[in-house]
């Protein structure tokens, strides 16, 4: 029986989770832009920059192109934002997460991470612009190639737990709890990245691509070729909602990787565990930024080739190891 107090408590918790996600993605987005600038020997924008961009966009003129499908044009930013908000409170911030370990976290995460990408496809098609349609078709190609290695790599830790006798679970909290302690004569922490490095690499590359970073990720919005891709015809508040959704991905996708493969908060006590978790997220963001700045953009056919051969092979190696029990 859920009382009103319980309901308010859950609501407060969700708002706290979203607040943490927003704050961290703000910092992550700033680190991304500042570090990109510093790596190119530039000065870079101030800390307020990501938020100033979004506030400015909400103050611009409202606009719907005459060729657009009005319903889908307005709906798709809302789909993107709600999907990423649901993700940002379904993925626990490195700690055992109240209201308890749900046994289907990872299914929700998989589903809404696809929803987030699909929102951009809808946006591109609904906006009625040829650039938007090219961008949408590229986004579809990326979804088709990335999702299979991503799904396998996300499901490796729970499958490994089931193999190891923990019982079958699809909860991220259980995965975090299982990564406490050490292994290999207590040299290494008991993180899944050391148990299944290939699957971790596959997940890292997939998340890099899903967060629109080079070498693969920015193909849909390749600004030298197709302006802003799916978002070409967007402007004003609707673009602001998209930018807000894209801000959250700096938290969501790094947090997913840290929770599944880098041990979350590593079993420390409460306030320290969240700090450790955020530091891990930040270091993943920094690695992603360095890869983004250092690499050029691949062609869309290379994405198919890379993800459906190399990354899929990485993920399958770990899957076969689990099935064989090695």
């Amino acid at each position, binding site marked *: 029986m859920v009382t009103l107090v319980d309901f308010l408590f859950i609501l407060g918790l969700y708002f706290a989770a979203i607040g943490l996600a927003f704050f961290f993605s703000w910092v992550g987005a700033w680190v991304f*832009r500042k570090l990109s*600038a510093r790596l*190119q*020997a*530039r*000065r*870079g*924008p*101030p800390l*307020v*920059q990501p*938020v*100033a*961009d979004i*506030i*400015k966009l909400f*103050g*611009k*003129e409202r*606009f719907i192109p005459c060729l657009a499908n009005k319903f889908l044009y307005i709906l798709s930013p809302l789909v993107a934002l709600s999907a990423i908000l649901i993700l940002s409170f379904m993925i626990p911030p490195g700690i055992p997460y109240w209201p308890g370990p749900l046994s289907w976290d990872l299914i929700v995460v998989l589903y809404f991470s696809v929803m987030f990408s699909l929102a951009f496809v809808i946006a591109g098609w609904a906006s009625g612009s040829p650039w938007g349609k090219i961008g949408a078709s590229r986004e579809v190609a990326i979804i088709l190639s990335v999702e299979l290695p991503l799904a396998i790599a996300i499901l490796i830790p729970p499958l490994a737990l089931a193999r190891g006798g923990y019982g079958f679970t699809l909860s991220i909290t259980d995965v975090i709890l299982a990564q406490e302690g050490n292994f290999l004569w207590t040299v290494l922490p008991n993180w899944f990245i050391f148990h299944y490095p290939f699957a971790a690499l596959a997940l890292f590359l997939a998340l890099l691509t899903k967060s629109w970073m080079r070498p693969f990720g920015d193909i849909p919005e390749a*600004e030298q070729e197709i*302006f*802003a891709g799916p*978002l*070409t*015809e*967007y*402007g*004003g508040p609707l*673009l602001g909602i998209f930018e807000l959704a894209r801000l959250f991905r700096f938290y969501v996708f790094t947090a997913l990787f840290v929770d599944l493969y880098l041990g979350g908060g590593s079993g420390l006590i409460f306030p320290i565990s969240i700090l450790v978790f955020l530091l891990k997220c930040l270091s993943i963001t920094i690695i992603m930024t360095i890869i983004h700045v250092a690499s050029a953009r691949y062609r869309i056919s290379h994405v198919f080739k890379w993800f459906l051969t190399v990354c899929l092979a990485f993920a399958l190696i770990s899957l076969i190891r689990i099935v064989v029990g090695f």
Partner: protein
Amino acid sequence: MGIMSWARGKSPWIAVLHAGGCNNCDIEVLDVLTPRFDVERLGVLWKQNPRHADILITNGCVSKHSKVFVKRIFDQMLAPKKVIALGTCACTGGIFVEGEGANIEETHTIVGGVDTAIPVDVYVPGCPPKPEAIIQGVALAIEKLKQSE
């Protein structure tokens, strides 16, 4: 001076439009993105997309052919929007028109400066203007953006 005015001043996104002419200003604009001048510290982002942009930098004189496209691209931008005329050609027509001062006449191909097609907020003369002058022009346009409704 509300929060919206502050945000507009902090995040001007820029599109560059080359209306016609010798391409020199077009290349000079790219200098302000280099590490020496780095306009991203002012929040300027390079959006070659008029829908996303707040400030349109036009360079080159407007020809009879490009006038309709300059107008169309200006109309594609969302309010509040500001226009910078960059270079002497964009300010007056430069060497491509006949006459001088207020008596500029259009030739058989060239109409004149950018202000013959769209309203201009900031004029940055020079052939080409130095990057410092371009940054000053952008800063003046940012001041106008802050005051806009």
